[in-house]
């Protein structure tokens, strides 16, 4: 009868051939993903320049312009995981039996088949076994005596955990995948830009929706330090976390040092000019009294000049140009600044646009009772924060640690076993059969095995210290 289909699929999934084919496919597609320009990372114009429209349509249709997020790539990775799971489950019972119930007393067939063994002639079983026991204990094999109805023997082993190592590594890989899947499903990345004093509890995700945080983040200050040649050395931001209006956490973040709160991480990503003014310091001089007075204004802030007159900073353009009777901003750099002040009189209700500097055609500077002069300007800077929520990353890091551990066990811990059995040869002579096996690095083990055998032989020699003592005694008598 044919094998039922689900079982067949299960067995195919667990076969090493399937695993290798899936891995090769993964490698090929991942390589394709690095050779073909990828959508989210590359500028759309650049992609259009690189490929002809037909080719691009084909690539887009196949998902080859965003390989790593295409459904078939995700499917492939899932199949790889499934294959690992299937292979591990199918092979695990055998390995577990081997691990949980070690083979301790070898029968004759096993003794014959084992390649690494040695026979030593002995006088009596007890002396020989206790000598072997001493040697094995000294070499770290933790020997135990195996008592059967009509025989007893020795079994010693090291690093049995090595038999389980492959499963540790595979489990760690699955843990990493699990973390990755959780992050792909429930994680998000967003961007938040704050200026000094500003706070926010909503962030704009890269691919669409806004996320509302159960707390707010305020920027208390941000800045940049430069090297002597002007390239940036450090960006920093002082952040405060506010929960229910209460300050719960302060932290200065720099590029490699994020703020973590409530599972959300804030990374210093960029720092730059907003093109907006933070503080403008002006000298206002009354046209009547000629009395100068310093005032400081933020955008849309109003200051009283005298009981009747107020001034408001209505506009600030860091780099202005004039065209068609309009003022435009050319860039966000503080190159050629212009400010529009509104001077109001309470009594008359008259509002005058005072331009600094005077821009012909639109300024009404002559009507103002005050003259203004710029004294100092401080621009507002924004700090760009990368915000991410990765609930699965702990799975990833745990998986990485477990894998490191597993790999050390896989490569450097050898499960080595030694059996010692007293036997009689064809002529009825008493012999000690010593056999050994290792699951890897067999050459090193053979060396160790012959060491053990030599030690046992040495222990079994008629004890030399006694002989030398008697001979010394004999010498002194004479």
């Amino acid at each position, binding site marked *: 009868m044919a094998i039922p289909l689900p079982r067949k699929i299960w067995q195919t999934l667990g076969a090493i051939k399937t695993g290798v084919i899936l891995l090769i496919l993964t490698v090929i597609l991942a*390589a394709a993903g*690095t050779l073909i320009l990828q959508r989210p990372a590359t500028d759309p114009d650049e992609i259009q320049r690189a490929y002809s429209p037909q080719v691009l349509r084909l690539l887009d249709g196949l998902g080859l312009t965003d390989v790593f997020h295409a459904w078939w790539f995700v499917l492939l990775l899932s199949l790889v995981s499934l294959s690992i799971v299937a292979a591990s489950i199918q092979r695990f019972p055998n390995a577990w039996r081997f691990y949980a119930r070690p083979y301790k007393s070898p029968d004759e067939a096993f003794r014959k088949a084992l390649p690494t063994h040695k026979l030593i002639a002995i006088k009596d079983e007890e002396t020989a076994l206790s000598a072997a026991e001493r040697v094995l204990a000294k070499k770290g094999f933790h020997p135990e005596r195996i008592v059967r109805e009509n025989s007893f023997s020795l079994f010693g082993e090291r690093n049995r955990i090595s038999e389980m190592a492959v499963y540790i590594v595979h489990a760690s890989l699955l843990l990493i995948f699990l973390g990755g899947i959780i992050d792909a499903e429930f994680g998000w990345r967003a961007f938040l830009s704050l200026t000094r004093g500003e706070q926010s509890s909503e962030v704009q995700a890269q691919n669409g929706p806004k996320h509302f945080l159960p707390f707010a983040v305020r920027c208390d200050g941000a800045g940049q330090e430069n090297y002597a040649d002007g390239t940036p050395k450090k960006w920093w931001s002082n952040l405060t976390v506010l929960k229910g209006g209460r300050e719960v956490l302060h932290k200065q973040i720099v590029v490699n040092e994020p703020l973590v709160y409530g599972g959300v991480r804030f990374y210093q990503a960029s720092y730059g000019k907003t093109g907006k003014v933070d503080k403008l310091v002006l000298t206002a001089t009354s046209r009547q009294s000629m009395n100068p007075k310093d005032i400081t204004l933020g955008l849309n802030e109003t200051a009283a000049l005298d009981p009747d007159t107020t001034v408001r900073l209505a506009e600030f353009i860091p780099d202005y140009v004039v065209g068609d009777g309009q003022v435009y901003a050319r860039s966000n750099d503080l190159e050629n600044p212009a400010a529009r002040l509104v001077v109001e009189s309470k009594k008359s209700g008259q509002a005058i646009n005072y331009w600094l500097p005077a821009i012909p055609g639109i300024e009404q500077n002559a009507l103002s009772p005050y003259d203004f002069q710029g004294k100092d300007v401080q621009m507002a800077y924004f700090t760009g924060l990368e915000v991410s929520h*990765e609930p699965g990353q702990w799975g990833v890091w745990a998986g990485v640690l477990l894998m490191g551990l597993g790999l050390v066990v896989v490569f450097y811990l050898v499960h080595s076993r030694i059996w010692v059995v007293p036997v009689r040869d064809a002529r009825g002579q008493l012999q000690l059969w010593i056999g050994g096996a290792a699951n890897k690095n067999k050459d090193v083990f053979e060396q160790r095995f012959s060491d053990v055998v030599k030690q046992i032989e040495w222990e079994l020699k008629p004890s030399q210290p006694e002989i030398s003592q008697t001979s010394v005694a004999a010498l002194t008598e004479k």
Partner: protein
Amino acid sequence: MARARVEQQPAAATGMTLVVMVGLGVAFLLFMAFLNVVKSGNLLNESNLLYATLIFYFGAATLYLGFGITGTPNYVRFASLATWAGLLANTGAVAHRWYEAGHPPFASIYEMLLSFVWTLAALTLIAEKKFKVKVIGTVTMPVAIVGVVLMQLLRTDVRPLVPALQSTWLHVHVTLAMLAYAACALSFALAMMFLIQDKMKTETFLAATSIFTIATYIATLTRFEKWGGLSVAAWNPEEKSEIFIAKGVRLFVVIPDLGWLLLLVLAAVSVPLVFYILWRKTNNEAHLDLANRAVFLSILLQTLALVFFIVRVRDGHYFSLDADGQFPTSLAASPFILSGLVGGIFVSLLYLLLLWRRTDLERMLPSADELDRIIYKTIAIAFPLLTLMIAAGAYWANRTWGSYWSWDPKETWAAITWLVYAGYLHMRITRGWRGRRAAYFAILGFAVVMFTFFGVTYLLPGLHAYA
């Protein structure tokens, strides 16, 4: 090994000539350098240390090659002494760099090469002393020399680290990468030696080396320009960088006639393969003999091409098809072509070494089984290192960009490298792959490593732009 020594005993006396010659050469070059130092009054700076490194490695490589050809044990003794001296100077250069820059030397491709060369020399000594693989220097020291020479062409000024690079995790990541890649390089060299010991036919090596050189020249000739020119990237000597006409678009200049020469050399390096195929078809030994002669001839022509390439690139300004006026270029602007040309010569020379001295080589190398085991052991070292390297990189990326994996090309290729070696381990452990197939896997693994290290940096775009 012991047998080899006995048989080579009579040659030992004459063998000293090479040692004496190399010793005199090193002394002469050091003396010339010393005169320069006296003039400038600055002894222990980085370029002097690097110069000393280069001289000692050069001496070591010559002696290792001498050993590879004649099998005189004396050569190895002096070669390791020279390697020790070079390593000392190299350590000085690394330390100087570290002190000057204030960070471990991993920030630019120059600094990475500096560290790579150091690791390579150290591993050569370890392989020699611990595993008794004495000829390994024949392969690794010339590679180290190419590394030092390439370093002379790259920009050397200590550049401040951009904020993203100021992290201990980055240093952990790069150190692990260097160690892992060096272990992969070692497994590659051992795999080659395995193929020799496994009685792979010398003719097969002939075919393989021919295909490698042909591929190199075809790849170079993709830069063939109309009317026989060769287009190479333009170079700004003041800035010590390539000239860009748009973001990511380099300016190319055309060196006239160089394309014809390279085409000629391509024909020359194809000749051995043609005769090899004829030999396979007709079984006429004369064809094989002709093929071997053609290799010798092709080396001469390849050397000629290299010399012309260097001379033409270094002198004068050339026209560009994309911009008006003439622009200079530099060897540093064409690291791939340069390494390709040098690599082709090197590989052909190694083939000749094999052809002429195969029995000596077989005597000097460990047995095939032994090599197979050592390959497995080096990969058993490389694989955990690769794993930790990727993990450290992911951890660093997570601290810097808030994402531990973003499928950027370097990451993807590191994962591919990891998968290839994982494939090797699975095949070996579960399928019992030993010997030749395992050796092929080790070679494939190293090819992927090389692509990840150089290819991705130069050919594919991504976050790892600075390394």
